[in-house]
């Protein structure tokens, strides 16, 4: 497995203990999702991202810190059920913050 060498620091940012917690969550969420409402799927993914993000906070760079702050605005029980449009808008907003973070980590992008 390769890492994009052009994005972000290569210094370890999470411990094995933190990584295994997220890994355990992802694996068991995959199994649990087979028996639960489909609308829980994005909630599980966001929760996994929050778990990983929580472990990254102490060593994260400033652009990543901003992304993690945006990620933390999701309530742990939020699903698309109550207001799908609002939920989509929140996810899209988070994706924009992610893009900003990636751009900041990459540095200036030359126009083609």
């Amino acid at each position, binding site marked *: 497995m390769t890492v994009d060498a052009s994005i972000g620091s290569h210094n370890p940012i999470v411990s094995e203990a933190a990584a295994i917690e997220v890994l355990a969550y992802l*694996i068991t969420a995959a199994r649990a999702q087979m028996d639960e409402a489909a609308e829980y799927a994005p909630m599980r993914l966001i929760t996994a991202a929050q778990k990983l993000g929580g472990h990254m906070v102490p060593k994260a760079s400033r652009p990543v810190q901003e992304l993690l702050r945006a990620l933390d605005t999701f309530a*742990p029980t939020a699903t698309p059920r109550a207001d799908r449009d609002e939920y989509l808008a929140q996810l899209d907003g988070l994706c924009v913050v992610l893009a900003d973070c990636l751009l900041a980590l990459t540095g200036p992008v030359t126009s083609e």
Partner: protein
Amino acid sequence: MTAVDRAVYDALRARRVTRRMSDRAVDPETVGLVVRAAKFAPNAGNRRLQPVVAVTNGTKLRLLRLISPGMIPVPQAAVVISIDVGRAASYGFPPRAPGLYVDVGTVAATLLTAAQAAGLGACPVTSFSRAAAGRILNLPETVQPHMIICLGYPDPTGGPPPMPKP
């Protein structure tokens, strides 16, 4: 007018799922009181095919939480409700007989009420890996866990908002 036992009815109305628990320890005697209530749950044929296991060991609780995507609180104790499919088969139940799962629900409702009576917050969890939970709890292969009831004192600072109403 219908005569109502207000204390019982008000208790039902006041019960809430506790999704944020404090780090105040729950003493084993209180956990035992909750667990013993399971035997008072309505149960088909009084066969008691839903064994309950109390988990108070800190390491096991942490491991259970790691394999439970649906476990939002950090509990101080937990009660795991299983179905003994081996004993169920000996009675002639097919593996997925609905009644077996209904009785998981009656046990759960009874445990939740008992927890409330003991002053504990409780949170039922069904989104977890049954296979991993069975291994962590060293359950026989014929005993399949189906629900975890998290126990702990409610965090006075509150918790996440309730799930939206259907």
